């Protein structure tokens, strides 16, 4: 729930794109920029979101450090793979942020099951998800998978593997998404309970 009325525009954080939108936004009230956004090279919207999800007990600097370490590990593995492979080097992505985005996009669910009571019986009804919720679920699943680990393995390491797996379209998170979709598919007969 935003504190701003709906006609307020989102702030433009990137300095370069500010000039482009100056004319459009000249007479529109703009929301204040959040204090965690910046125009630095270290900032990414999705990355920022993920840091917030990693954070426990408000220890954000630790979360940031963990994500940075995750990126480092991803980069190291990818560069190693790059150096090992003789052919199709072009296909290997080294940019950790891109891999993260791919992983999240790959593990985003489209539908969700929710219990609806009709005639005294609860039905698992597939309902579509909003974009925001689907991003949230994707990141949550990634993190849940990463946190389900041996005590000796560190979070960045496991998270890096999960991200790499998900970016390839494999792994537990993708499987979880597929399972959910499959269930939704099998419960399609109940779909009309959403509105009747």
């Amino acid at each position, binding site marked *: 729930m935003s504190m701003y009325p709906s006609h307020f525009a989102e702030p433009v954080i990137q300095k370069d794109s500010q000039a482009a939108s100056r004319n459009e936004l000249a007479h529109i009230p703009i929301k204040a920029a959040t204090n965690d956004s910046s125009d630095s*090279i270290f900032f990414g919207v999705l990355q920022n979101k993920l840091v917030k999800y990693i954070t426990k007990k408000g220890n954000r600097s630790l979360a940031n450090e963990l994500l940075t370490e995750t990126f480092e590990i991803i980069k190291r*593995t990818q560069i190693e*793979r790059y150096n090992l492979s003789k052919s199709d080097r*072009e*296909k290997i992505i080294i*940019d*950790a*942020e891109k891999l993260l985005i791919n992983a999240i996009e790959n593990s985003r669910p489209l539908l969700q099951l929710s219990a609806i009571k009709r005639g005294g019986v609860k039905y698992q009804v597939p309902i579509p998800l909003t974009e925001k919720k689907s991003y949230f679920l994707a990141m949550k699943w990634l993190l849940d998978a990463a946190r389900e680990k041996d005590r000796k393995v560190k979070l960045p390491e496991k998270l890096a593997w999960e991200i790499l797996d998900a970016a*390839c379209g*494999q792994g537990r998170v993708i499987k979880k998404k597929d399972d959910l979709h499959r269930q939704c598919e099998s419960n399609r007969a109940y779909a009309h309970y959403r509105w009747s």
Partner: protein
Amino acid sequence: MKMFRKQFVHLSRVSTHLQRNAIAPCIASPAAEMSTNVAPAAADTSSAATNEFRTGVTNPGEHSELHVAKFYTIPVEEKKQIFSGGGLPKQYEQQIKTFTEACLMVRSPALELLQYIKNADLTNPAVRYVLYGDNGVGKTLTMAHVLHYGALNEFLLVHVPWAPNWMKRPKEAANSASQEGFIDLPFDAAAWLVHFKTQNAKLLGKLQLKTSKEYVWSKRESTPAGAPLMELVEHGIARIKYASETTAALLAELKQLASARQCKIMVAIDGFNAFFHPITRIFSDNKQRVTPERITLTQPFLDITNYDWTNGVCVLSVDKIAMTEGYMASYMPRYLLGKDGFEHLDPFVPVHVGNYTDKEFLSYINYYLDRHWISRAQPGFEEQLKFMSNMNPYTLMQLVRGL
């Protein structure tokens, strides 16, 4: 050993992971297109800029002002010979592994030092060079550069990768048998002997150095006079109990041999000020902290950094991190060495290692781009990195991790 095992475990983990993913054609296709955007750019910068930030001269003796801010590659065997027992920072070692090449940047402090060493008259007493500078500024890597020079120019290397390890986290501490009230670090001494052996095995074989007197370790064990030096080292490694004494004997022998012009010696001790720290973390029998001079390893290394021998060079570094809390106010040599340390070393040549210059900084950025370590090269990112790291090498390394 433990460390090696750890690394090995890590390696195996990575390799299993690689196998797992090898089945799927790497990444989703739109992303693959994106990745090609960076690759050609990097490729043509590397082709055009090979001369810009790399140099083919791999012999540190031939480096000159021309090669400042350029990278040279240490050949794999030489790296293995010199640095397998330590000598490069852990994170740099990791970077070398990732980049599959051991590159060092030619920087002016190292060049200055090499210049001094080349011009020095070895018949004069050993000159002590002291590297000093703030945290993460490249003292150890400067030393590594000089060590490489020494290894190529037939210096026997007496290299202590990080002296504070002995005072701060020794593997084992035992009461010395030969000196009353002193403490032996048998495992650390043996580890150092192994390090010495790997660094100098080739040269020792060539020089055929002999011991000058007989060393009696116990009733049954002794090393006769005229035995090859290698035998002494082997003895220390095999009989860990006598490793500290062997180290002392070895260093004394080396000093004599060098003064007799049978060999040249390069002493390189990182974190030298640890020898003059007021206390260590080792406890004696009466549960009190021991001062560094009560460790049997200290005296030989102090002797070999003294001025009373010839045919040698001492490259020492003083580091804030070698001290403990309360003694870390400044990085200046006099402060870190303290009164005793200063008197021990004086007159020494202080060599300041500073942050990157603009040229070095850009060269490093180019190198990172070339190795694909920076994959998000947005316009103006150099400026931001420069501002945030203050051109401090270590800070830059840390910042670039997540890019």
